[in-house]
């Protein structure tokens, strides 16, 4: 790269992007302080993909286990292999949230008497792990429903 481009690159790196407003930090603090809402059917929705993932892992493990040696072969010394942790080989590479449905659940009245609108959004969260050694990847998708209550005055 040209010297002048390198100088420009260095100049750009010295610029500091503006920070989010104080309101964003306050809103994050409020959201993190509140217990995360789980949908009523969360475990029902989660159980199926979780079971599928566990079954897949068990299947992989079964396939990787060598068959029991015959008596003749058992006389030969067993090959020594270094123990390897399956969890250590897979690293998460992406997490995606796909919005596939949204509905307006109508107006609600908050405790202070103000009106708010309740919206319901349905997502599919997909997390992908990848094994950089074998390039194998593992995807876990789980549906999630999120409800938001937004004061009408802000709409």
């Amino acid at each position, binding site marked *: 790269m040209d010297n002048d481009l390198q100088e420009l690159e260095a100049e750009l790196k010295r610029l500091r992007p503006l*920070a989010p407003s104080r309101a964003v*930090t306050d809103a994050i603090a409020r959201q993190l302080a509140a217990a995360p809402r789980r949908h009523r059917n969360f475990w029902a929705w989660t159980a199926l993909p979780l079971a599928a993932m566990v079954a897949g892992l068990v299947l992989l493990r079964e396939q990787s286990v060598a068959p029991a040696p015959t008596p003749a072969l058992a006389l030969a010394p067993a090959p020594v292999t270094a123990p390897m942790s399956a969890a250590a080989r897979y*690293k998460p590479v992406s*997490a995606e*949230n796909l*919005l596939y449905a949204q509905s307006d659940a109508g107006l609600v009245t908050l405790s202070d008497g103000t009106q708010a609108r309740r919206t319901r959004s349905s997502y599919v969260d997909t997390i992908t792990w990848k094994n950089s050694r074998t390039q194998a990847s593992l995807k876990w998708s789980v549906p999630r429903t999120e409800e938001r209550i937004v004061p009408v005055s802000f709409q």
Partner: protein
Amino acid sequence: MTLFRKAPSIESMADIPDDESWRDWFQHYGPKLLLCARQWTRSVADAEDVVQDAFVRFWRNQRKLGGEPQALLYTSVRRAAIDLARRNSRRTAREVRADGGLESIEPIFHLPLEGDDRRAEIETALRGLPEEQREVLVLKIWGELTFEQIAAQLGLPPNTAASRYRYALAALRDALTAADCHG
């Protein structure tokens, strides 16, 4: 001169309980996330909503996954921006009032030591870049992602990401040179 405080170590982050430790992390990464979000949203307010959503989601659900949390966060920001765009498209025209993402006249950067003119020139030049070049530049310079990570974010081959980055820098240089000549 150190522009940012040192970020909390990623390795230790997984062991931190849900206390106030997120504030240090957000103070470090919040501005970078906002800048990225502004490329993909119609207004600064939308970009802040996107950053808020993505950060809360990351902190609650994804930070303990290990791997590259920075890349996960940018993915989360991008997805949140796409979701918001879908929601916005369903609004009536009356409700959609864009005050501009990076297209707006809202400043993008803090005032550097050299003065406001240079910052303004850079911001103008940055806004003039084609969108596909600008997003690569922003993710590389301020997002501090590698070309491989940028390529994964945007669904591009890494070589294309690297080419767009070089084109963006060259276009910025030309625009700034022209601004100097006319200024």
